[in-house]
């Protein structure tokens, strides 16, 4: 009776085996064939940092990195991640030290309720590592426009991204690989 029949192939089928790398750790999971990555993260692995805001690829709250690319985890079946490297917000900080993007979000008060924040930071960290995206404010705003912040903290998020860029630049100048997760 519901409008959308996208889920007609429900979970009569047996579970599927998924091998992938999550936040740097190789793992094997049994997942339902109709389970999306977002739900596997939140419900099966109890990694609640990746948020569900629309389940339709419209809000960006569920953004993760898949092989270094920012993607909506609500639009990927978990089984599509076979052999891939997935990074979530839980994988941003290392050894108890905040990632530069996390640190700048803290300092710039680049959030309010915090619910879109993981997605904002995952898009921001991918953007900062992507040389195709301009460094100016307008380019950053355009590139970030898939991540809705209903609290409207856009001004501070922009400031935080540009502040984190300084840390990225410093890392690049030192000629080190830095901590650009996801592409590991």
């Amino acid at each position, binding site marked *: *009776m*519901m*409008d*959308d*029949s996208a*889920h*007609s192939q*429900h*979970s009569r089928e047996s579970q599927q085996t998924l091998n992938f790398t999550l936040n740097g750790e190789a793992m094997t999971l049994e997942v*339902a064939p*109709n*389970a999306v990555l977002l739900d596997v993260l*939140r*419900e099966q692995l*109890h*990694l*609640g*940092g*990746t*948020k*569900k*805001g*629309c*389940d*339709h690829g*419209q*809000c960006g709250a569920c953004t993760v990195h898949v092989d270094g690319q920012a993607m909506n985890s609500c639009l990927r079946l978990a089984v599509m991640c076979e052999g891939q490297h997935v990074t*979530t*917000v*839980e994988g941003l*900080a290392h050894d108890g030290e905040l990632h530069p993007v*996390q640190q700048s*979000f*803290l*300092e710039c*008060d680049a*959030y*309010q*309720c*915090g*619910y879109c*924040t993981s997605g904002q*930071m995952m898009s921001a960290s991918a953007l900062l590592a992507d040389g195709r995206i301009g460094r100016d404010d307008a380019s*950053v*705003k*355009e590139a*970030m426009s*898939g*991540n*809705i*912040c*209903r*609290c*409207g*903290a*856009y*001004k*501070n*998020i*922009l400031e935080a991204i540009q502040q984190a860029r300084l840390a990225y630049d410093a890392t690049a100048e030192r000629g080190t690989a830095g901590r650009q997760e996801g592409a590991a």
Partner: protein
Amino acid sequence: MNDMTQSAFANPRVIGQRTPRVDGEYKLTGKAGYTGELHAENMLYGYPVPATIAHGELESLDLDEALAMPGVVEIFHHRNFPKLHRSPNSMGHGDQVSEVRLPFEDERIYYHGQYIALVVAETFEQARAAAYRVGARYRHAEGAVPSLLDSDAEGTLIDSAGSSRGDPESAFSGAEVQVDATYHIAAESHLQMEMHATLAEWRENGARLVVHESTQGVFYQRNAMARIFDLAQENLEVISHYIGSGFGNKLFMWPHAVATAGAARELGRPVKVVLPRQQDMTGGGNRPASRQRIRLGADREGRLSSVIHDSMTETSLVDQYIDACGSATPSFYACDNLSTSQRILPVNHGTPCPMRAPGEVSGIFALETAMDELAVELGMDPVELRLKNYAEQDPASGLPWSSKHLDECMKRAAKRFGWDQRDPGIGAMRDGDEIIGYGMATCTWFAGRQPCEARVELRADGTLFVACGTQDIGTGTYTIVAQTVAELTGVPLAQIEVKLGETSLPAGPLSGGSMATATTLPAVAAAARDALAALKEVATGSGGAFEGGEADSLSVADGAFNDGQRTVSFADVLETSRLASVNGQGSAAPGDEQNQYSFRSFGAHFVEVRYDPGISRVRVARVVSTMDIGRAINPPTARNQVEGGIVMGIGMGLFEKLDYDPRDARLVNGNVADYIVPVHADAPEIDVEMLDYPDFKFNEFGARGVGEIGLTGIAPAISNALYHATGKRHRDLPITIEALLAGQ
């Protein structure tokens, strides 16, 4: 409470200082647990099935296929859901709900998205898959009302929501200059990022209910659930540690929570329901559409002689919600003749509810656009017109304002904006292909306080524990509570643990109405002082660190006492007396000051729009605002609230509209892509200044609250700027590209 200028917080060290959020690291690392990502042992997943019609009856349900699907445990509907009781729905008794009708009460369908069933299964995927396989047949009823905007019905007059002074009708008809205009605002969705979510768990063989809910009011939900499930309040706990914001639609409980807890009781297992976004938008609250007529009468010098503000807003068929558009109007301008009236019209929607600055933001759009129309009629600068009718005291109550600096707001913001560069000619300012429009409007929101209790523990490990049953919906309540106890005790922020969002804690207020700060902090301060007094007694008592000393002679600094000779930390004082901790209780409530002053916050917004007539594109390029909000406890989080309100105001002005099909009242754009809200690229250059005039008549902190005021006044400033750019008056929100194109 008469005069709090002798405030302990007159020269604070932590209050008023930039303080990173104490809960920030949890939010930034994914460790903050929002309701939808919590789990309980043996938990089941619920997925509601929504009605696909808006008006009629459920004729039959076909559950066979869904029940046979893997993992499905039960499907609840009107024939098998337990018969529960309704909540008395009393604000005064703290059991108000958003929709009084219980889920699955009967076969009647009142709105699209109303729950007709709840599928419960072992996994989320199984529940969702089966929900899509529930079959339903309906009997459609004639006469669905899709929207107030499509209706010419008169609605019902609500006497209690109107006001009158003088003789406004005569004054209007005799006025030298008149404005008579009608304004429409579309229904809006809160679209808070985290959908409504409930995790309900019955313990002790069904004697005790623990509910995790994303709510702005744990106590209201506890009390309402106690009535509905016929439980003693003491046997019910509601918990909400992190909330993906609410903007008003999480103030009071919705039917999904009742459905979830009912299912959990019947099945004897915990059940979690996270509303899909589409259902959140149909049955999780909305700002109702409004129609407002404003009549202004004035003399040639611009002095108002009459203000008449008549409003009508939507409610639902199952409840009565009043979005009082005219509630700020009587206090706005000095004018002896004024009336407001309010009507409501039932439509086939889920019940509307408060949405950020409810009523007033809609009313201020109409009033402040009408004032711009009057300024144009008079050939007068809009700022000058407002100063000419400046209310030096509250014309509604006759009481003096506790603290009002709106004139300063207008002047300072105008200066930063460059208002004196404005050429008042229509379309007179251009930059390349774009026509530049300057517009302004003022804004206001009432300042209120509620009763509140709090508790503070000073502990022998050097930490401080502070608890209050209010919530942090993203405004920064955790942090300002920590700042308050840090200020009074000198214990560093890193050693302070703040606990909010549980009904097991001392009773705290709703996170709403911009009242949480002014309500919570006085109670927290009282509890901190009580704890310090208790510890001083210990210190000077038998065997104490300052045995034989006078409690009054001990000064407090940096988490320690000093008697003029020795400094001993709180931890050592406790250790000396073999105590693990001391406890302080505090409570606070509004007092007699409410009879002596009128309390409001004020502000002025100046907006630059840029309109490209070639492609009929309008964008807000710049917003300059000055706010008079009393003291900001934590300036960056307070400013963030105002900036966020401004962004939401751009949505209200240009984008946001819940679109209901005029044929059958179904919601057409129930998703985050078709219901348009501002994104990064829409965010303008924003310059917010906050005046620092602590309002010690209101409370010893001087804070009035800041959550809502930023939103008010933005939409009229945009429409006024667009008039300046194009010469076309937009009286309906949102101002869509179709409206811009019309009549070109």
